[in-house]
């Protein structure tokens, strides 16, 4: 099963929220949908769920127009909501039936999930009597009812303690094993990295990346090395690198980036072993010289900053163009 979004555009009044959003998700692989606040994640998800109609573009499931109400879709919205004053089991059965399940099937499924999430004793209680964390678990159960083919989770971990987060992780892992199509939106990069084979990064309504997480990381780490010294701090190391540039006939040793403890070097034009010998000869005590493996946070920050620079440059050019025209 493959879900594809092709050139989705959506505006609210004069605000253009989604710009030609395109990405694809395969079943059996969880896709992490990342983006800053207000980047367009929830609007994209609401378009997938047919809550918002896109202004243009198409959403396909296996090359056919996707109708979420004709497929079993488990959906956990970012803004949680269920009936506070209705008995828990009764409303879970109701939501199960609205998704197309039978009453008996929905009841069986709801009872099984309540047991799995250790909430069976509250089955006939009103939702409002539960703690916030347990209410969150009931909302998660609602998304997993009746064995959905597709699961869309918008910020699913917010409000869960580590123990309950672990219960939830197991449920997601099971869904992935059962070849379900899982879309997972979160700000918590650790969770995305833990589950997701693929990522889609959206910023200001534009898709920046869509693909395998491993490939994205590999692309970012290509010919990049992490350097950390025992006897020199980062500033001293940077000075030393400038001297080497002259020795390498001004071939560029790119300082790709740095973090709190190390420098990230781009050695695409230099043989890494030669470089290592030279800095050892310069009495640099090596603490760490390794292939750079970016974290998801690194990936996120890298692409978002790049996009910011590009959009700022475009804005600047637009303003200049306008003032010249005037």
């Amino acid at each position: 099963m493959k879900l594809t979004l092709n050139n989705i555009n959506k505006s609210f009044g004069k605000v253009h929220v989604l710009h030609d959003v395109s990405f694809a998700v395969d079943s059996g692989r969880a896709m992490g949908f990342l983006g800053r606040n207000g980047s367009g994640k929830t609007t994209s998800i609401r378009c997938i769920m047919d809550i918002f109609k896109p202004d243009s573009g198409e959403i396909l499931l296996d090359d056919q127009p996707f109708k979420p109400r004709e497929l079993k879709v488990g959906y956990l919205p970012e803004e949680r909501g269920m009936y506070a004053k209705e008995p828990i089991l009764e409303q879970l059965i109701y939501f199960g039936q609205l998704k197309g399940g039978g009453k008996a099937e929905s009841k069986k499924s709801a009872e099984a999930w309540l047991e799995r999430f250790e909430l069976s004793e509250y089955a006939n209680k009103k939702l409002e009597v539960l703690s916030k964390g347990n209410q969150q678990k009931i909302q998660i159960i609602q998304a997993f009812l009746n064995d959905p083919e597709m699961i869309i989770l918008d910020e699913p971990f917010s409000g869960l303690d580590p123990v309950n987060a672990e219960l939830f992780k197991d449920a997601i892992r099971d869904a992935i094993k059962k070849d379900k199509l899982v879309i997972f939106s979160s700000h918590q990069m650790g969770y995305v990295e833990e589950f997701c084979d693929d990522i889609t990064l959206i910023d200001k309504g534009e898709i920046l990346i869509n693909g395998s997480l491993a490939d994205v990381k590999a692309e970012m780490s290509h010919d990049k090395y992490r350097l950390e010294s025992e006897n020199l701090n980062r500033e001293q190391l940077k000075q030393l690198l400038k001297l080497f540039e002259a020795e390498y006939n001004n071939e560029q040793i790119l300082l790709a980036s740095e973090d709190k403890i190390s420098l990230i070097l781009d050695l695409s034009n230099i043989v890494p072993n030669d470089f290592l010998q030279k800095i050892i000869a310069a009495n640099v005590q090596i603490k760490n010289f390794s292939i750079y493996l970016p974290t998801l946070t690194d990936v996120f920050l890298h692409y978002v900053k790049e996009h910011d620079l590009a959009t700022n440059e475009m804005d600047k050019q637009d303003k200049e163009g306008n003032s010249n025209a005037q």
Partner: protein
Amino acid sequence: MRNSGLVFSFELKSILRKKSYLVTTIILCLIVVAAVVIPTVLAKKEKQPEDVLIIDGNVPSSVLEDFPDEDINDTIANGGYFMATDELKDFPLIKNIKQEYTDEDSLKTALSNDEISYGVVFNSANDFVFMVNGESNPVASSLFEQQLLNFNRMNYFEANQINPGLIDEIYGVQVNATNVDISQKGIGNFALAMIYTFLLYMLIIMYGTTVSTSVAREKDNRTMELLIANTKADYLIIGKTFAAGLAGILQVLALIVTLLISLKFTGQDIVGLIGGFLELNMTTIVTMIIFSLTGYISYLFIYAALGALVSKVEDVNYAVTPVMLIFIAAYLITMLGMENPHNTLLKVASYFPLTSVLAMPVRTILLNISPVEILISTAIMLLSIVVFSILAIRIYRLGSLNYGNRMKFGKTLKMIIRGEGS
């Protein structure tokens, strides 16, 4: 449509389970029981109206003879009198008065000392003064006046040798005059029109607000997103509206059943009571059923749509105010129109869909309306419920997706005209 049924059943159960619904129903039923039982019990306890027959006009003198002494004693016993004339020495009522006084002053003194409850000074056969000390006694006063009148008449008849029975016979002849307006129906129909208007008014106001609050609450607590992700907005609004509608009808049925049981319990002849005063035919009954159901559902659709325009429960009142004002106007036009059901305003109101829900059935209950008029109004009503429901579904669909500020009704209508929400 399966999901409409699911929504309907879930919403109906939810309303029927609410404490507020149960408490309101019980209180209303108790009011009905009290309204029927209490007057019946009080009427049984009180003395029968025959007690005051003696003070009614045109009473033959024979009545006084038949009137038990103990009843006269109860009425006039504890009094006193001063006879300032010889004309009344044979006046039979004075033997029932407790005390005779020799002059007016001693009578007044006894009265002011509360030795007697009233005093009478007989000045002549047709002139007396009735005195009390703070506590009035209109029954005794009227009794003296009436009996003195009878005493004088009897004396006159005797003096002129006239047979009193003949006079009674002459004055006993009665003419029965009945005014009939063939366009109007009986007094029972007026009561039915009042009950119909009041019940429907209560139903629409109570359950309209229930529906709009329920929709706004789902937006407020974000359940709406989950619902519209799983089913169409059309099914949600249809299920919700009909559930609230049925809950209201069940409440009215509970009141009617309670009324019938109370009437039976108090021994009142229900069939006679209803049949005796009402002039109903099949056209009137069918008109009442069609207009009450379609009008009720139309209003509930409108209330549901208006509830979807707001994102917070506390904003519901602002959103429903315009339609509530229209409905209050319909209620006032109908209630005031009952005084003169031929008036033009009521007639016009019986064709306009938002007012015909009350006006047309009331005109049909009170007047003999031409079937053509009823058919035209029914056609407009049926057409309007289609238009209102489609409009309400589109407003609901647009409103349910808007989580921002309150949507303006006019702006929403423009969006619908542009084809949004379809």
